């Protein structure tokens, strides 16, 4: 019943499983957030300022937005606050200034579960699969809020990631790093969300899978789903992005279309690895 040891459940390979702690996330308490309204978008985290618990602010007047059916990509150095911004948009980080709006509706005060029901899907950067459940059950859990028949979506996910079909009866905790990442993305796709938020979906996946993944993301966006993602494989990501954000120390440093950012030599040198 130790901390980490206690929580070690079902994971066989301890070198690729993080001995999990108890959940770290908590639903934000944004009751007193001072709203900001700078512009409109389908999903927008507008002028967000806030941080973890009682610590210093991580985000400073940070704005992230994505339009319907478009792809927005967030890039920036490590620790810039990209994941933090995603969490803020999803209601897992208390912000004291700013607002989050979805389709014009202010959702700043909604709990994460409620946001899921509003059509938002999220793949966090770490701990993003149910390790003790099989691959198939992971996907089913992705479709938890769906009441319709989701076997088609599941077939699509299996098409996209054939390895998952092969391993569908295996506990996800036994998969390799890249395979887990595929499960995580597949899980989010199962939700059939209106907005899909991905935190570094391609970390650790092989080139061939990454290409397919990006292709698929474009396809998904074409069906009218908005995509908001953080990427370190920034050049490929920006290449398909309608909108790009560069965050530095919790602030918007550069904003523009994907092409604009790719073309900006300063951005290339400092953030995209030349």
């Amino acid at each position, binding site marked *: 019943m130790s901390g980490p040891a206690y929580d070690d459940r079902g994971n066989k390979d301890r070198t690729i499983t993080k001995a999990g702690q108890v959940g770290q996330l908590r639903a934000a308490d944004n009751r007193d957030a001072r709203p900001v309204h700078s512009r409109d978008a389908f999903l927008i985290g507008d002028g967000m300022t806030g941080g973890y618990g009682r610590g210093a602010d991580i985000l400073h007047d940070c704005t992230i937005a994505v339009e319907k059916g478009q792809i927005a990509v967030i890039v920036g150095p490590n620790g810039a606050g990209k994941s933090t911004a995603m969490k803020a948009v999803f209601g897992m980080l208390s912000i004291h200034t700013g607002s989050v709006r979805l389709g014009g509706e202010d959702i700043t005060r909604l709990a994460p579960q409620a946001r899921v029901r509003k059509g938002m899907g999220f793949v966090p950067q770490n701990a993003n699969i*149910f390790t003790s459940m099989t691959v198939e*059950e992971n996907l089913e859990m*992705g479709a*938890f809020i769906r009441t319709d028949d989701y076997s088609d979506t599941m077939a699509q996910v299996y098409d996209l990631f054939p390895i998952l079909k092969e391993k569908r009866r295996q506990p996800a905790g036994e998969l390799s790093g890249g395979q887990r990442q595929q499960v995580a993305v597949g899980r989010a796709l199962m939700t059939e969300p209106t907005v899909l938020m991905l935190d570094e979906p391609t970390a650790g996946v092989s080139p061939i899978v990454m290409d397919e993944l990006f292709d698929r993301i474009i396809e998904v966006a074409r069906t009218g789903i908005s995509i908001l993602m953080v990427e370190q494989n920034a050049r490929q990501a920006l290449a398909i992005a309608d909108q790009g954000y560069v965050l530095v120390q919790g602030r918007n440093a550069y904003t523009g279309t994907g092409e604009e950012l790719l073309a900006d030599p300063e951005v290339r040198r400092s953030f995209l690895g030349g």
Partner: protein
Amino acid sequence: MDFLNALVALSNFVIVPAVAYGSQLALGALGVTLIYGILRFSNFAHGDTMAFGTMGVILATWWLQGLGVSLGPLPTALLALPAGIAICAALVLATDRVVYRFYRAQRVKPVILVIVSMGVMFVYNGLTRFVIGPGDQSFGDGSRFVISALDFRAMTGLQEGLAIRTSQAITLVTAIVVVAILFWFLNRTRTGKSMRAYSDNEDLALLSGINPERVVLVTWLIVAALATVAGTLYGLDKSFKPFTYFQLLLPIFASAIVGGLGSPVGAIAGGFIIAFSEVTITYAWKKVLGHLLPESLEPDGLVQLLAVDYKFAVSFVILVVVLLIRPTGLFRGKAV
């Protein structure tokens, strides 16, 4: 040389009691394992939860008996079960509301919850004794035996008797049915899977739209039902006494752990392992061998591997040995 008598003697003193005791332990261990699996802590209050639920059943049984209701050969207590479960559920849900929920929100380490559950144990402990007192209560009625030793002897003409109690039979059947249902529930139903998901990764469960409070609620309801059923069956077979229920905690935990914490099937297997090891290792084979061997070879001594003094020690030795061979129990990770 009398094979039949030997077999009957062995069944009567080893197999039947161990199977019954094993299923009793298993039912208790199921509750423990479920809480461990889903709410992630070892619940020390489980023994006293069982006592409390059983107390509810006893009070209801007395009331029913007062009304003259009976179930014929079956104990009236079975009729009173729903009432007991309801009372027990109310208690655990109230506890969760007042106590556990706070710590869940705080995301405390599981060991804190373990200690908290000890506090809860003390409180339940007092509550039960306040209401029904510390003494022995009998509430069984109906016919005690499916077949008694005497009847068996009369029927078969054998020298040895075989007794099977109604409560033993009910317990075994219940244990099997409950495990099957639980297994099905956790692995096949949406709610069950959402419970496993929650236990695996709370944060992600939240992100999938699973309502944690509902998971917790369902878990406690199942636990209350399990605890009450287990406690009642145990009480029918032996007798009800709050202190004994507290003492049951140790073998129950042992069962849950040998079987693999978090696994319902493991709980059953663990219950049987503990029960059989307690009963067989210290069994004196004199009687059985006496039937089997020709008269000239009949043993003088007891032919006992170890004195019953070491009964508990032995069951723990077995437990340790099992763990050394399978360090995370027999059924780790198969379910829940």
